[in-house]
């Protein structure tokens, strides 16, 4: 049973804001939400992590509602180089076991000129 659900793909024009949502209805109290970006022939790369409310860094924002059953990665003003697969990871602190780590199947974002 998948612990996270994401859209399979999204298209966006350059310069637009893109929002990718991940559903995690069974999120546990200790679970953090982490997003990764993956380009072809490379491993995933960390983008942002949060527990609740809103987190922002230099590349993205992460919005987490009060019930924490979903999260939204927001990429401002995307460019062609943002074309990649984006993964949502929900998992607890590792002291509780590695089998609490669940990657989604990823969202393939295509940025169109």
């Amino acid at each position, binding site marked *: 049973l998948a612990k996270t659900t994401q859209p399979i793909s999204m298209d966006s024009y350059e310069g637009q804001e893109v929002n990718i949502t991940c559903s995690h209805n069974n999120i546990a109290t200790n679970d*953090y939400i*982490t997003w*990764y970006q993956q380009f072809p*022939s*490379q*491993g*995933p*790369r*960390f983008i942002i*992590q949060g527990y609740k409310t809103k987190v922002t860094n230099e590349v993205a924002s992460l919005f987490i509602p009060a019930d924490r059953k979903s999260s939204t990665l927001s990429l401002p003003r995307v460019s062609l180089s943002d074309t990649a697969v984006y*993964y949502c990871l929900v998992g607890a*602190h*590792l*002291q509780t*076991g*590695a*089998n609490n*780590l669940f*990657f*989604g*199947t*990823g969202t393939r974002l295509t940025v169109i000129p």
Partner: protein
Amino acid sequence: DVKVTQSSRYLVKRTGEKVFLECVQDMDHENMFWYRQDPGLGLRLIYFSYDVKMKEKGDIPEGYSVSREKKERFSLILESASTNQTSMYLCASSLTDQPQHFGDGTRLSIL
């Protein structure tokens, strides 16, 4: 910058062979992971290690084993390779409660 190095980018082996995939990290991370990545299935955790000689099974450990004799090195072993183990294998490392850092993967083909 953290560097996670996987020994091979591409590997071709035959059914029944014993296969070793090696991963080395240079940032003294206590946690190391092995995933496989298949189209439509995302990343699935095979094994995880939180200390030298310590390991835990992930979602799909069947047909695999691991070895962690030194902190910086985590090996994935396919005891008797089968065609359904053809996949992209990704290694990662992290400090506890911190994001994972990934290698660039080994694309393994079992013929």
